[in-house]
């Protein structure tokens, strides 16, 4: 843990590290243990100035997850720390690199657009928390957004 905090403290002082360059730009005076690939992950200056930092309560609202003030206080800094760390991707030269949706791009696996009856409907019904004959029961939507 102490090592990681040291890494983060040092990171803000270190020169920007452009990841595409192979050699590490670390000076040997840095006293923490992690070097090499692991340290390069955690070392570069980020440039998040154009992006707003994460607002945890706003994000929680968007994701429809309730968070207590204690949770915001606890995980807010951790989320910001990780998002800052994501920022190093900004420095990679991705000019004219195609984004890969997934590794293997075998296509054409589409099915017939025809409904099939699932045999075990009883088991599906048994899992529904609030069920009233044909309907899944939910509370009213009071606020229109």
């Amino acid at each position, binding site marked *: *843990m102490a*090592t*990681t905090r040291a890494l*983060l403290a040092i990171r803000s002082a270190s020169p920007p590290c452009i*990841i595409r360059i192979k050699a590490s730009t670390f000076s040997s005076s840095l006293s923490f*243990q*992690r*070097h*090499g*690939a*692991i*340290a390069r*992950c*955690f070392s570069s200056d980020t440039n998040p100035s*154009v*992006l707003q930092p*994460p607002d*945890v309560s706003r*994000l*929680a609202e*968007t*994701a*429809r*997850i*309730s*968070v207590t003030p204690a*949770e915001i206080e*606890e*995980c807010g800094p*951790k*989320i910001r720390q*990780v*998002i800052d*760390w*994501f920022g*190093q*991707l*900004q420095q*990679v030269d*991705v000019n004219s690199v*195609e*984004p*890969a949706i*997934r*590794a*293997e791009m075998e296509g054409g*696996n*589409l*099915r017939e657009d025809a409904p099939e009856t699932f045999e075990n409907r009883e*088991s599906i019904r048994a*899992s*529904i*928390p*609030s069920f009233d004959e044909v309907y*899944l029961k*939910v*509370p*009213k*939507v*009071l606020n229109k957004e």
Partner: protein
Amino acid sequence: MLSTLQPPRSLTLLPFRRLHGSKTIASLASSSPTLDASSVSPPQSQILTTRRSLLSGETTASEIAKSYLSRIRLTEPQLKCFLHVSENVLKEAQEIDQRISRGEEVGPLAGVVIGVKDNICTEGMPSTAASRILEHYRPPFDATAVKKIKEMGGIVVGKTNMDEFGMGSTTEASAFQVTANPWDLTRVPGGSSGGTAAAVAAKQCMVSLGSDTGGSVRQPASFCGVVGLKPTYGRVSRFGLMAYASSLDVIGCFGSTVADAGMLLHAVSGYDRFDSTSSKQDVPDFESQFLSMDSFESKPLKGVRVGLIRETLEEGVDSGVRSATQEAASHLEALGCLVTEVSLPSFSLGLPAYYVIASSESSSNLSRYDGVRYGNQVMADELNKLYDCSRGQGFGGEVKMRILMGTYALSAGYYDAYYKRAQQVRTLIRKDFKAALDHNDILISPAAPSAAYKIGEKKDDPLAMYAGDIMTVNVNLAGLPAIVLPCGLVEGGPSGLPVGLQMIGAAFDEETLLKVGHIFEQTLNGSGFVPPTLPNVA
């Protein structure tokens, strides 16, 4: 609870293994008067042993099942690998015995006792993904992989513990219990398939099915001293695997030998119309790779080109792990391989790219857990509040954090900066792997930068936890197959901690991985990696 354990059997087994960073095998052997070199035999496949002894009548499926159930009862209080043990084990075993006694055919996995990670749906058995939001959920269907092993006669003995929804590297993020590493009960088994790996290591089951999104099969395999096999993306149907990151998830196999992991993989592989990302590539007969050691030539891997990934041996990786990996490379050379160093320049980008993609995709995938159609519901007077509270109270801290990070990365205006960029980095990583695998048959690296660490050590420091995934995430981004097998021990615990070697193959080339892995394992001096802190199986 510890008083129920028998004293460790380490004295018999210890001399056979090399402790990296301290004694060599030669000095250990000479210091033990009980060592008898001729009694060392390579680890045997449990699937083949079961098959032989059932068909020869030497034992019955019921006897085997009983012995595993009693071992589970004996060891679970210390280990906590299982979230649920099946009530149908003996019944299923009896059915197999009846079929054998009637002279009927039984499947190739008949009587094999199998653990299944709790994010893989098993009909009628709880499947919770170790989350409170699915606490009592019983799926109405089997995952395709589970359906296949059942059709082949396999017995699902229970559902194993994991980090909630696959998010974690220690199994500490389970909503229900923390699994202990059988090698040292104060240490983590790894994650997210920690219970799944530990159950095989502790001989609570013969083989098990896990899932691997960023290393969740390979890293616990390394920490627990078992074999973990991650297939190519698309090799095994994901139907019934609760999705974490859809472009990265695969179902993987654990076994105590390469042969067992390979045979289990063969059983669950193949095209499935229910999974649109499932591949139509032929599934070769993996079993044909597992020749007996007697038939090995003197250099059985002659000409196999192995690339050792330079970036995985830099400082920051424990010295014991580095030396175990280098020794493994020497062992491969002794078997005839041509081992050279390769560089993957994009290597260090994999970790942030992975976490952007995984948290983004998980924020989308976990939106289905809304308390309406299944799972725990927290009733409220308004619909949005029902969603908020069901999810807020149902999800654990790590899951919430990742969903929020993913929500941020996918927000309007930020998609290009994060998710799209990470996808572009994925292309760079794929290219580097392809270039390296054009000149090598396999690549090798450690499976993790260290052996198992203490429970609680990294719990509050997300970046420290994520750092441990550096060896494994790139493989998921590239969609390639990889196997981890134990290659040595490092200092720590009552008698050393296992360290795994990772071998990475070209897409759909599990055959080469299994061939090399099997020969490596069978010729590695020693009688297998058995944790010494537990009583031996009856």
